[in-house]
Structure formats: structure tokens, C-alpha cells
């Protein structure tokens, strides 16, 4: 059995990027008509255009919010059998070992912290980038493939009561560093 997550993830990214293109086009179109608008009645005629141009999130935010939702649900399942996690460091270690193994297929390779709420997690062969050619050729494109995992991690931490900002850094595919910055309560 092999649920085709990688292929689903790819299609979500493609679909999100297409929506992004639609959103940019809607913004341009609104720009061409804005000079002729006179008051609320005119704006109402273009309601769906305005919604598309300004109320929809951009591609990375959309991918991240999908990941957040999944992460918060998954961490409940993964942590069901675990002993109670008390300290912030225990929670982050749980994410790096048990959660990472269950969801990404292996543990992280390295975890560092300054003991002031900042953690740097390194994974030398991150799962969503494994099918890329190795090296720095696709470092730019790989950003979209990390938005969902960042949301997943932020959601998992949120499910364990830690509010954090998660951002990725790539120097060479498929090695990724995730920076976790815990926010004050």
C-alpha cells in the first residue's frame, strides 16, 4: 500500500499557483477600472472581482494554512500513546523524533536551541524534496514545497499548546533547516 501523498502534494501546489495567477490578473483588472468607480453602488457591480483580488490569500499562505490544519489533527493521533509532555524542550524533541518519524519517514538529523525559544531543526533529506535533483539548481522553486511542511509543524506545535513561527532555509536540496521561534503566551 502506498498512499500517493507526494503526488497529491504536487497537485495542491500546482492548483494553488494557478489560483495565485488568477488573483494577480484580478488585481490588474481592478486597477484598470478603479478610476471610473463612483461610490458603493459601482463597487458592488464588481464584487466577485474585488473578492478574488483582495480577499484570497497568496500561494504560500494558502499552502501553509492547509498544513497547519493537518498538523494540528495529526499531532493528536501521533501523541495519543505518548507520556505527558511538560516542558517546551520536551515538546520540541517529541516533534523532532516521534512526529517527524511518523509523518516524514525519519527523525531529524540535528536539533539546536539557544534555550530562549529559538530552535533550529535540520533534516538532511527532507521528504518533500527527495524527488528533486540534488544540489542548488532548484533551491528557488523548492520554497513552495516547504510551505505545507512549515504549516504542518506550526499546527503540530499549536496542538501541543506552543505558539510558534516556523520558517525554512535551504542551501542545497534536499537539506533543509527549519527555524522555530516560540512566541510568548
Amino acid at each position, binding site marked *: 500500500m502506498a*498512499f500517493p*501523498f*507526494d503526488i*497529491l502534494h504536487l497537485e495542491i501546489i500546482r492548483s494553488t499557483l494557478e489560483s495565485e495567477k488568477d488573483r494577480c490578473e484580478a488585481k490588474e483588472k481592478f486597477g484598470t477600472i478603479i478610476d471610473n468607480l463612483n461610490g458603493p453602488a459601482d463597487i458592488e457591480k464588481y464584487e466577485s472581482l474585488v473578492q478574488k483580488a483582495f480577499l*484570497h490569500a497568496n500561494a504560500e499562505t494558502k499552502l501553509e494554512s*492547509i498544513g497547519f*490544519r493537518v498538523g494540528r489533527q495529526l499531532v493528536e493521533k501521533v501523541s495519543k500513546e505518548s507520556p505527558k509532555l511538560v516542558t517546551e524542550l520536551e515538546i520540541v524533541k517529541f516533534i523532532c523524533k516521534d512526529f517527524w518519524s511518523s*509523518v516524514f*519517514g525519519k527523525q531529524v538529523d540535528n536539533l539546536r536551541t539557544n534555550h530562549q525559544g529559538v530552535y533550529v531543526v535540520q533534516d538532511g533529506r527532507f521528504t518533500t524534496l527527495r524527488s528533486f535533483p540534488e544540489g542548488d539548481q532548484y533551491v528557488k522553486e523548492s520554497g513552495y514545497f516547504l510551505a505545507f511542511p512549515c504549516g504542518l509543524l506550526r499546527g503540530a506545535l499549536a496542538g501541543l499548546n506552543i505558539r510558534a513561527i516556523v520558517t525554512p532555509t535551504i542551501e542545497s536540496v534536499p537539506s533543509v533547516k527549519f527555524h522555530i521561534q516560540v512566541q510568548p503566551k
Partner: protein
Amino acid sequence: MSKAIKQNLADSKKMSAELFCLTYGAMVTEMLKDYEDPKDVTIQLDKMGFNMGTRLADDFLAKNANVPRCVDTRQIADVLCRNAIPCYLGISATASSWTSGDREFTITLEANPLTELVQVPAHLVSAGLSYSQLIAGAIRGALEAVHFKVYASATDTGANTEIRIRFDQVLKDSLPAGEDD
């Protein structure tokens, strides 16, 4: 080195069912916010499924060298129900309700993993949302990758998921002049 990479790639495909199904659910939720009409979401799911299906056909045939070239619709239905659907969804499926001289049939999934954790509101279904249309689109895409043009639509009932498949035609490659099939 090449062996190790292949092993890692194989391992990475053993993602949990829950990751796949929760991701799908979160994606559908997000799409319902973006599109005003649930019918548009269904169309988008079918398109995404089609793209996935063309890739999955390659993956499936690479893993199952013993699957023969299919010469009729019953054989195709058999491969889908016995091999392909168990391989990617982990469930069994049955083909039934053959009509139109064996050009139409229904695949029934008794325990669809996509809908296991999901309660789709009735007003969305009546407005045109077909939650499992991704599977139907994937079947359409996979069969097109092996030169069979079909139409597929998914319907979720309370207990199972039914995918109605209608064969249209066999697609022909256009060969360069002078070549023989």
C-alpha cells in the same frame, strides 16, 4: 548509493493514510473558500485527479510488471479493482452494473478512506460538490495514459462510494509516415 536512494524513495511512499486523507480534507476545505460554487470545486478535483492519474499509471505499471495489456473493459475493471485501487487506497473494490454492451460499469468502494473522517454537509452535496471526485479523475487520467478515453463520476452514499465509468474510445497514437503499428 543508487540503491539507498531508491530505498528512501520507497520508504517515503509509505506515508500514513491519515496524512493523505487529512491533507485532502484540508485542501477541499480551502477550495470551498476560494470558489463560490461547489460545482467548480468538483471540476477542480477532477482536474487534479486527472493529473495525478497520469503519474500514478506510470508508477503502477513500474511496480506491477505482470499486469498484461488489457484488451477489453472487463479486464480493465478487474485490474482496477484487484490491483490498482488496493495498491493506492488500501481497500477492495468491486465492479458491477454493467450496461451499454459492457461500455459502462460502476466501481463500488466499500470503505473509502477519503470519507472515513469526513462529514460532508448535505447542502454542499446538493449544490454540486462530489467529495471523492479526485478518485474518479485519477481513474480517468490513468486510463488515458494507457490510451483509453473514459468519463468517470463519483457519488458518495452513506455507506460507500460509487464511481460510474463510461468508456468512450480507444486513443490512437499518430505514427510517422511509413511506420507500422
